[in-house]
């Protein structure tokens, strides 16, 4: 059945195939064809696949989300969009998956830094793209990677040259303006050796059903330092499948902060390959309300010795929302002296809310330090009582503790404009709880 729908997509999409970017580049054409074969063979992921056992994607098969070769000509509500454009950042804006020069703001980027639309670069300097494209993730990873590779329309290419310190974050803003549309974007981020930068991926869209399928490949080269934020605030009717695939070279540092707030159904994949003595921090917060389904997958591959990984994912699920956390840490035979900690904590606020959590440790080396922990539960009653004994009524006490639980992840954001935006999005999701900012 899955493959049947897949073939509908294949049939529909074959109409635009010839006009997709990079059509004159043999390497890309070949890759797209392989991806297409892969996808039409496998179809969308099914519950039988271990990595997808908690997430049923059959609802996206009922629709056929349309691919297009250009952004829609719908007027964008600029006042609304302004909420998501962060001050003190360079912006590269993708509308319906395509670069918008009008909305982007790249004035004053240092000359040696590249922040461009992927299509533009495929025309101007395809070799630069070729050396990174598909190198952090392969089309065999899962069908959505194949899907994205076959049909991506555009994306962003960001390269911070060696020894460059970028003093403002780069915001990559994805906006979908059109119902029933597919926005498939492919992004490449390269922090060359000893570079230092911050990047913010933001996903928003009109209050309609649409499909956002993004793959971001990230290369953190020797001794570089990259911090990435992902703020997923898609419409509550939308489908989001976003993967971030990271390769860390020797001594590289990478931090990722993943905020999954929007979408009817969202799946996020963060994969990190760790080189010698590199360091990665993965932080996540998923807030599910109504009937949202938020799936978070992380994989940390310790491939070489002395790398350190720290992971904290927190979930708050209310109403009939469902959360998934699957965190896998793999320590290869050569990765001695690995130091890894993974922690997933969940709060269920209603009887109908659900979470499936599955941390997995696979260790093939013998001299390592690995720890993981999971909690699923309600609020700590001792804390509720403590607040009550300080005059706070029980309901407010519970709300304060819930908010505090989530806010711990928000307070990790040092950039003020982003911090305030994320905080506003958190507060928006629990309005009935009377949570106010001055609790901070």
């Amino acid at each position, binding site marked *: 059945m899955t493959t049947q729908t897949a073939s509908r997509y294949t049939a529909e999409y074959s109409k635009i195939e010839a006009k997709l970017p990079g059509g004159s580049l043999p390497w890309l054409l070949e890759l797209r064809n392989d991806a297409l074969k892969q996808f039409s063979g496998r179809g969308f992921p099914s519950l039988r696949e271990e990595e997808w056992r908690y997430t049923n994607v059959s609802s996206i098969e009922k629709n056929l989300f349309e691919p297009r070769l250009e952004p829609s000509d719908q007027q964008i509500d600029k006042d609304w969009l302004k909420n998501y454009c962060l001050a003190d950042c360079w912006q590269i804006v993708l509308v319906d998956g395509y670069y918008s020069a009008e909305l982007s703001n790249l004035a004053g980027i240092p000359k040696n830094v590249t922040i461009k639309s992927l299509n533009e670069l495929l025309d101007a300097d395809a070799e630069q793209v070729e050396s990174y494209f598909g190198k952090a993730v392969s089309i065999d990873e899962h069908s959505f990677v194949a899907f994205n590779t076959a049909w991506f329309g555009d994306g962003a290419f960001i390269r911070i040259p060696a020894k460059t310190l970028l003093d403002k974050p780069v915001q990559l803003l994805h906006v979908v303006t059109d119902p029933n549309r597919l926005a498939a974007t492919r992004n490449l981020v390269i922090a060359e050796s000893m570079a230092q930068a911050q990047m913010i991926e933001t996903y928003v869209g009109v209050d309609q059903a649409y499909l956002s399928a993004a793959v971001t490949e990230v290369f953190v080269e020797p001794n570089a330092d990259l911090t990435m934020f992902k703020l997923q605030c898609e419409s509550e009717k939308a489908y989001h499948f976003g993967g971030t695939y990271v390769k860390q070279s020797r001594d590289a540092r990478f931090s990722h902060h993943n905020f999954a707030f929007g979408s009817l159904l969202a799946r996020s994949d963060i994969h990190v390959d760790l080189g010698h003595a590199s360091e990665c921090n993965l932080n996540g917060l998923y807030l599910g309300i109504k009937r949202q389904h938020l799936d978070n997958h992380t994989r940390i591959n310790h491939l070489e010795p002395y790398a350190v990984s720290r992971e904290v994912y927190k979930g708050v699920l209310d109403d009939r929302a469902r959360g998934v956390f699957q965190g896998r840490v793999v320590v290869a035979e050569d990765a001695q002296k690995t130091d890894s900690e993974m922690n997933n904590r969940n709060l269920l606020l209603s009887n109908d809310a659900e979470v499936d959590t599955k941390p997995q440790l696979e260790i093939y080396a013998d001299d390592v330090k690995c720890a993981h922990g999971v909690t699923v539960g309600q609020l700590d009653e001792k804390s509720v009582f*403590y607040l*009550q*004994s*300080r005059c706070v009524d029980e309901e407010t006490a519970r709300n304060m503790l819930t*908010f*505090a*639980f989530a806010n711990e992840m928000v307070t990790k954001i040092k950039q003020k404009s982003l911090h305030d935006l994320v905080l506003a999005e958190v507060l928006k999701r629990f309005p009935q709880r009377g949570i106010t900012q*001055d609790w901070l």
Partner: protein
Amino acid sequence: MLNIENLHVSVVDKPILKGINLQVKPGEIHAIMGPNGSGKSTLSHVLSGKSGYTVTQGQVTYEGKDLTEMAPEIRAREGVFLAFQYPVEIPGVSNIYLLKAALNSIRKHHGLSEVDAMDFLTLIKEKVRLLEMDERFLYRAVNEGFSGGEKKRNEILQMAVLEPKLCILDETDSGLDIDALKVVAEGVNSIRSPERSFVMITHYQRLLDYIKPDFVHVLAHGQIVKSGGPELALELEEKGYSWVENKQAA
């Protein structure tokens, strides 16, 4: 002010308090001493309304009202304050916010308007100085990462700001160094008044040197086995609890 009559309390069917009688009048200071596990904290929890305790017999009235009928926050707003033996860490909620929220709930409870922001800051800074605390503690999350002594001091700060009528101090002196003990005792003494009463649970005479009690009670096996004046504490220090426990048994 507080009247405890023949109070029996069980935790999951296990009797812990077995007939406590205690009367606290306005302005009085009562010290409660007693061996580990005798039920001192249980008593303090029952008075402040923690769930999980069943009153199987007896009654507790506070200012003429049945205390056991009130929700914990109502008791707190009516002036019952418990300084915890083990204060809880609340990550994500700042100390100053909690103080303000607490103070405003008390004011609202008494039909008063919210405290003026400037007045609040002035008040709170005065109390912080009184307890020789660093102002930065105000902006940290409640008790998070505080040392044992800092937590105890923070409890007394809250007490000094909220100005309760009945202050229950559960081993506030444990974990304080000598200087901190003095500061905390001064904090307590500074809010003593003819209307305000204290119930101090302690294991040590040391605290009572600074805050002189009117009465000393010994709680053992869920009952008050002996009551007396301040001299009783000295006697206990010298002879140990077995002295009163045995006497009771005899």
